[in-house]
């Protein structure tokens, strides 16, 4: 069995599952986000288990509308009434996938669900994690269960050593550009090259599985992953690695040592990403580094490293959003915020805001944005007449200095 098949078999009490099977599973952890309380919240009469639930304020914080503020009121009343201890209110909040990671809520071999499409981020920790709609997440909150249909899995074997200049974003964009979407498939990553890919990059890759339309996106538990989990969870866990005779829909090798910095053109990432060297030096109006995919401490460290002692170009806005309040605090203490701010960047509070064009940093008609976030759909970050390119935090920071899309090796050399 593949990793996902193993986890779904375990969670449904089966010895074995195969592609096409429909299984009913106990869900180990369910995360409710602020939007659920703002957009769809008749209070429940009872819930399955407050200990398998977390509530995280992330998409619209601090509340930009009265409707969002009312959602916060409902969320706070709910956690009080039902004794939900894992409540991450504004001030100890963050983008849910970051908070999930910091608090060890995505655990190897377990199932995690949440009302955000990038919940597949948890796959970095060998978790069967995926986004589901608000009605289904509400249902899981009530019953503790849901169903899955076992999808075929595409396996990526990473070989070679990742160069320092290459990040998880570049690896993902390479895969999306070379192989296109993976609709109704799972992604599984492994291979000897994985040892050179740190946990933050794995989470970027797992997060972006949603951008190629994959169901689940998982990594094995290796030494790096164990080190991370040792620091973030104190309960024992049971990893689910794939069997040597697992069946895959496709098996593809990625030579990390041969990768260059990548960029996705506007609209989508699948079949639409190329090495930076292959596109025109497009002038940029706004640069963004943030989101569950790229607002991690390591992303801010890279951006600060590129920007320290340099200046954001005239006519360019650089917005940096830490993925959580904890990341924000760490970035302050490490001097990253100062370096970014001195260079002319705006460092915001942690929120999903700019990434989904809901609040802060929207784009006007005719503007060009280079983003290190999750999604480059038309209209995603504001006007449908703006263009959204996507790249790694390093490439975005370099573009902010140059004023146009550029290979970061040319700026930092």
């Amino acid at each position, binding site marked *: 069995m593949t990793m996902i098949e193993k986890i779904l078999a375990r969670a449904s009490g089966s010895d074995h599952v195969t592609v096409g099977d429909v299984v009913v599973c106990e869900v180990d952890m369910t995360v409710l986000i602020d939007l659920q309380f703002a957009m769809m919240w008749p209070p429940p009469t009872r819930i399955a288990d407050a200990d398998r639930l977390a509530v995280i304020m992330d998409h619209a914080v601090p509340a930009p509308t009265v409707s969002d503020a009312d959602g916060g009121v409902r969320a706070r009343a709910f956690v009080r009434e039902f004794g939900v201890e894992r409540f991450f209110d504004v001030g100890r909040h963050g983008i849910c996938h970051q908070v999930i990671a910091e608090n060890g809520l995505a655990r190897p071999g377990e199932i995690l669900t949440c009302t955000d499409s990038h919940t597949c981020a948890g796959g970095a920790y060998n978790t069967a994690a995926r986004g589901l709609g608000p009605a289904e997440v509400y249902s899981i909150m*009530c019953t503790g269960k849901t169903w899955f249909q076992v999808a075929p899995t595409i396996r990526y074997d990473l070989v070679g050593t990742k160069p320092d200049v290459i990040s998880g974003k570049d690896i993902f964009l390479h895969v999306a550009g070379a192989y296109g979407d993976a609709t109704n498939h799972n992604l599984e990553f492994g291979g000897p090259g994985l040892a050179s890919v740190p946990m933050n990059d794995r989470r970027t890759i797992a997060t972006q599985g949603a951008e190629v339309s994959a169901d689940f996106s998982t990594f094995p538990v290796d030494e790096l992953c164990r080190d991370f989990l040792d620091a973030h969870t104190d309960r024992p866990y049971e990893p689910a690695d794939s069997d040597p005779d697992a069946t895959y829909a496709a098996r593809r090798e990625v030579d990390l040592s041969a990768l260059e910095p990548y960029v996705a053109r506007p609209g989508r990432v699948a079949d639409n990403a190329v090495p930076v060297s292959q596109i025109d030096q497009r002038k940029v109006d706004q640069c963004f580094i943030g989101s569950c995919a790229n607002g991690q401490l390591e992303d801010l460290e890279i951006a600060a490293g590129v920007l320290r002692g340099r200046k954001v170009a005239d006519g360019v806005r650089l917005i940096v959003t830490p993925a959580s309040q904890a990341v924000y605090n760490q970035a302050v203490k490490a001097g990253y915020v100062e370096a970014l701010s001195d260079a002319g960047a705006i460092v915001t509070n942690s929120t999903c805001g700019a990434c989904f064009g809901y609040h802060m940093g929207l784009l006007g008609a005719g503007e060009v944005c280079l983003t290190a976030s999750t999604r480059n759909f038309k209209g995603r970050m504001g006007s449908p007449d703006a263009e959204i390119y996507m790249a790694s935090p390093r490439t975005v920071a370099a573009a902010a200095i140059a004023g146009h899309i550029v290979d970061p090796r040319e700026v930092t050399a």
Partner: protein
Amino acid sequence: MEHVVEGRAWVFGDSVDTDNMYPGFAMKLPIEEAAKHVFYDLRPGWTDEVQAGDIVIAGRNFGIGSSRPVAELFKALGVAALVADEFNSLFYRNAINFGLPAIAIPGVSAAVPDEAPVRLDIRAGTIQTLDGAVSLQGAPLPDFVWDIVAQGGVFKKLVADGYVRTDSS
């Protein structure tokens, strides 16, 4: 729920994403208002033309993107069902869990002409144009999926099972 529906087909292409159907700015609006912005950029004015009972057809990878409840907007517009060559699985689950039928019928987006009147059998997974020129068969809807759709979505079942407080909104 009727499992055979007839209506006008509105045909869209591949990889139609959720931001195109439920843009970020519309998330600040009540459902009825937000529904006026479905396909706001892809097909401006469509929400004035669509009528109750109409069917939205798309190509591959329909609904890539977020978990925002697009189905609620389609239902507010009276759309009877979604049909696509292939659905993104989150979008598919989101539709049926809100009680909006979603049926995968490979080849449908190329075969059915835009605005053609069609007959769709949700349970059998078949679609025909009323002029008889096109007739396609997809996979029949699994019984448990039909049950979710027929009861109006998972939420209706939770209400029936007493999980939802009905004395407040």
